[in-house]
């Protein structure tokens, strides 16, 4: 479903230093599978998620990203979103003055229009919002607030998953969605994510911790270091990493 081949990317030279971050990422996530990416701070995990989502602050210098057979490397962020790519941000952004549901309804309908589908009506959208909010223990008051404004770190992560449920993407990238969540919140969020699992949907879960993976039960675990995937294995690899740390991959860092 998602095929990343020899992906090289650097911070856009316009931004200052010519800084290479991704140095040949190879990664394939078939439909229906959940893959975890683990790795030390600064190895390029968030950069990978940004490059996949089309962030213009990074330039792809080599390699390709194929999504459902299509090369999406040149597409605008919103075009990738319309094809079903959703990124749960490590640091969700606050948008003052824009109510969450207004934002999501605009987004959902923009995606639908781009796909040539009918727009969702306001009552249907509200009904869906209430159902999804209930699943995640999100109060009415939280829904009424502007996007992410005034939320704690954990609440923001919960809202990211709420957004995912509302937009029902084909592929999810979760960037450290577990950090900032207490144990109870983690469970609720993990249940929300699990509810999205189905044979047509793929997921890439970036995390440092075993805890989230215990709930999500990934099919494959990858280790990223120095801007590349350096090892892949089954769920047991995550346990090993949790016990041993990333020291053995230190040499990979360029």
């Amino acid at each position, binding site marked *: 479903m998602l095929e990343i081949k020899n992906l090289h990317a650097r911070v856009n030279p316009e931004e200052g230093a010519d800084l290479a971050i991704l140095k040949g990422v190879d990664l394939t996530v078939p439909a229906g599978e959940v893959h975890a990416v683990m790795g030390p701070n600064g190895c390029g995990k968030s950069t990978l998620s940004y490059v996949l989502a089309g962030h213009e602050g990074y330039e792809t210098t080599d390699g390709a990203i194929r999504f459902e057979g299509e090369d999406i490397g040149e597409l605008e962020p919103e075009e990738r979103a*319309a094809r079903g790519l959703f990124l749960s941000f490590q640091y969700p952004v606050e948008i003052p003055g824009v109510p969450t549901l207004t934002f999501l309804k605009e987004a959902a309908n*923009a995606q639908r229009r781009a796909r040539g589908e009918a727009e969702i009506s306001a009552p249907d959208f509200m009904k869906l919002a209430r159902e999804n909010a209930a699943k995640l223990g999100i109060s009415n008051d939280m829904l009424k607030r502007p996007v992410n404004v005034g939320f704690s770190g954990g609440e923001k992560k919960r809202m990211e998953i709420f957004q995912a449920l509302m937009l029902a993407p084909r592929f999810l990238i979760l960037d450290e969605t577990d950090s900032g969540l207490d144990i109870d919140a983690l469970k609720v969020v993990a249940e929300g994510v699990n509810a999205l699992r189905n044979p047509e949907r793929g997921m890439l879960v970036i995390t440092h911790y075993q805890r989230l993976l215990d709930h999500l039960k990934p099919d494959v675990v990858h280790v990223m270091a120095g801007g590349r995937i350096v090892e892949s294995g089954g769920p047991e690899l995550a346990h090993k990493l949790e016990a041993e740390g990333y020291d053995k991959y230190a040499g990979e860092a360029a």
Partner: protein
Amino acid sequence: MPAVKETIEDVRRLEADKYKYGFSTEIEQEFAPKGLNEDIVRFISEKKNEPEWMLEWRLDAFRRWLKMDEPNWAKVGYPPIDYQDAYYYAAPKDAARYKSLDEVPEEILETYKKLGIPLREAEVLLGVEGAEDVTAAEARERPRVAVDAVFDSVSVATTFKAELEKAGVIFMSISEALHAHPELVRQYLGSVVPVTDNFFATLNSAVFSDGSFVYVPPGVRCPMELSTYFRMNAQGTGQFERTLIIADKGAYVSYLEGCTAPMRDENQLHAAVVELVALDDAEIKYSTVQNWWPGDAEGKGGVYNFVTKRADCRGRNSKVSWTQVETGSAITWKYPSCVLRGDNSQGEFYSIAVTNGRQQADTGTKMIHLGRNTRSRIIAKGISAGRSDQTYRGLVSVHAKAAGARNFTQCDSLLIGDQCGAHTVPYIEAKTPHATLEHEATTSKLSEDQLFYARQRGLDEETAVALLVNGFCRDVLQELPMEFAVEAQALLKVSLEGSVG
């Protein structure tokens, strides 16, 4: 940053075709001879068949104006204006004789329809003339707005007059009011903005053409929104609107003002004076959506909007709110103000100003606290894009007797790109220690992170920018009457739109 850079590029390419109101109307018009002198002042007064005192008032203003200098303290730049190279009166031929909508030429009705103001339909659908059965349900759903349509120098039609009269509300063009209610006009005209207030106000006093007159009698809540729609059509002609609104004791009125002009290569002068008077316990809400032609991307053409707007909160517990959405004009010079004379009176100023291309805006407000326990609130949101330049200029002045006065001011500037400018110039003076004044100001750049976040969720760049800007302006948009808020949001989007794809 690339995305923003693109936005800037787009915005820079801001093209004339984004301005939907740039068409002009082909209609036979009558002009005063070009230039400005006492004869022109007499010509205008005569056209309007004014009483002698009005002519004297104008001539007095004109003679004073001759001795005045154009102000130059605002942070705007433009070549000297040749006041002799313009027409000071233009009107559709025979305009003075329109007795009802039926007599208004089709071209003019079409013009207003194209501008989204179907004068005749409004009357027929919702008016009192025989269509009441059909309208009852409709009227409940749609907010009703009475319109005074001012075309260049004359008011061509005023809707819902009869129904308003039933409620005791006087709503008509100021030219008409000079005949129908001379005593009211004479009592209040120039009582808020004195003839010699400033260069442009004095010019207006000499040559003012038309505008609206509103009087709401004691205890009356005006049954519908009132509005004036100003349209500048004729080439080479200045527009000098004059509006006077009086809310008598305990009265309430909400008034909306809209304005557009055709795209012309030359600069056109719009020098308006608006006076509001609120007596004891009265409230006036004055909203503007200003969308004069801003000129093209290179700064050619566009309206010079040099306006004096002031409210006198004359009575105890009176209240005036100014809400403005300023998207148009090549140059805006405008400071809607409140003189808080009555004890416990309140003034509010909510403003959104958008400048793009080569536009320049120097706008803000003055809150003059004279009475005890007077309160004022200022929320100003400025959005600068392209190579535009914008200044918020505000004065909060608390006089010695205004013990217990309070002001809250918040000015936020949003910059889109790095070729525009935003400046905040707040003046604060308090002559009593018993005043509470708060001032907050922020300047931010359109955030790349917010833009990416919104686009990741599926919004294209233009929609994302519009959404972020709407969010930035939310405090002010909320203050607008519903039907204007929708228009204003759409307008914000268009004003910032590039010519993508």
